């Protein structure tokens, strides 16, 4: 059984059927890129895996544990805990503007380990947990090259720096799979490189990642597997060489030709 198994995902918004039966699986340490034109359902698929949308049908199984089955009912709390298996980096960063960079990264771990703690913590215990979380946050922020921005507010950073903070914030929760929803689409071209470099480093460190992207070159070089989505189904799946080099479906061919045209 694969590390992540997604089976038969359907999702409709009102009358529009956005996902029409998605099956995919990936192994630990793999990077999966999802490409496709706008409206093909790739972002919705990612949001389903992060439980920001509820699939109408299908199952999601991670590491042998069934996380989601559309025929079952889950409480808010159960969904919240399942969500922690996945991290999500948004196109528009969504940093918390009122907090410093360091606090942005520390906030969620603190809330989870101190405020949601099931046992009553003493003051020194709380202080120790806080210190641990902060040390961890500092080292993650150092790894994305932001050691000198710890006390800055998001509005003082460039888009690329903000997105790297968002990546650090997601990493601080140590998710099993880190998802990216078009992480460079809101960035100026000269800033995309620094974000892609961080993602590449995460791949080299063995992170399991799912990457929805319009950066064809990056998908080709960084991904282990590529999915091309069109009209709510997986039109093509394979290694980057197969999908980019020798696509079998006409839709994929047309899409890739258009994407490459834009580059030239």
């Amino acid at each position, binding site marked *: 059984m694969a590390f992540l198994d997604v089976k038969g995902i359907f999702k409709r918004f009102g009358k529009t059927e956005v996902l029409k039966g998605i099956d995919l699986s990936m192994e630990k340490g793999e990077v999966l890129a999802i490409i496709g034109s706008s409206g093909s359902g790739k972002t919705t698929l990612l949001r389903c895996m992060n439980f920001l949308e509820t699939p109408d049908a299908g199952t999601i199984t991670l590491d042998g544990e069934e996380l989601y089955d559309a025929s079952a009912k889950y409480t808010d709390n159960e969904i919240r805990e399942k969500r922690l298996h996945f991290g999500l980096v948004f196109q528009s960063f969504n940093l918390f503007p*009122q907090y410093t960079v360091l606090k942005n990264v520390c906030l969620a771990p603190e809330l989870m380990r101190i405020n949601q703690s099931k046992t009553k913590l003493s003051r020194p215990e709380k202080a120790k947990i806080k210190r641990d979380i902060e040390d961890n946050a500092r080292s993650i922020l150092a790894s994305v090259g932001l050691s000198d921005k710890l006390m800055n507010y998001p509005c003082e950073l460039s888009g690329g720096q903000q997105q790297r903070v968002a990546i650090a914030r997601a990493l601080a929760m140590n998710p099993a799979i880190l998802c990216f929803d078009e992480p460079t689409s809101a960035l100026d071209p000269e800033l995309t490189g620094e974000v892609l470099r961080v993602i590449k480093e995460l791949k080299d460190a063995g992170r399991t990642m799912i990457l929805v992207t319009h950066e064809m070159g990056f998908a080709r070089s960084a991904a282990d597997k590529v999915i091309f989505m069109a009209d709510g189904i997986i039109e093509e799946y394979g290694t980057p060489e197969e999908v980019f080099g020798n696509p079998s479906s006409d839709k994929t061919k047309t899409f890739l030709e258009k994407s490459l045209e834009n580059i030239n």
Partner: protein
Amino acid sequence: MSFLEVTAQLANGFLTTLLIFGVTLVGAIPLGLLITLGSMSKIPPVKWIFKVFVWIIRGTPLMLQIILVFYGPGLMGLGVKFDRLLAVILAFIINYACYFSEIYRGGIESIPKGQYEAGQVLGMTKSQIFFKVVLFQVIKRIVPPMGNEIITLVKDTSLARVIAVVELVKAAETIVSLKSLIWPLFYVGAFYLLFTGIVTILLNFAEKKLNYYQG
């Protein structure tokens, strides 16, 4: 009547004005939040009850509401009768809570969905997202419109005289009509200007404090 005697009488009225102002704020700020939650409820009947209530309160004169709260219970045979000042304060709290609730609602709805989603994917509970992520951003956004309402409240306190509560304007009017003096009216104006001036300075200070970040 000497300047000092007038000052003493006006100061007395001013205390009542200050009391109405202060208690209204303390009561209406949290009550407004409750009304906001009601009017944003996902349960349609609850939502509509609150929306209709806000419509009625904002759609009728505060003066009418003061009169109704004071005379209403007795005339309807409910067996309770409010003290004049209490009736004024109750009417003010309800009225201002409705205005505040709409300001809060606007503030809450102006926070981008992405802020909630970021909290969700990081495993925060609904209340953590509200209190740790959203609330502060809402407060920053609503300070200017709240300031407007609060300054209006300073002057609205003069409506209390409609049921013979002696606040600042009523105190001055008594002097003017009994002693045939005109200057106490200008003197009262100075009281209000000083009061709103101080409130304005405090609000500007709050706005500056909250302006340490953009967005």
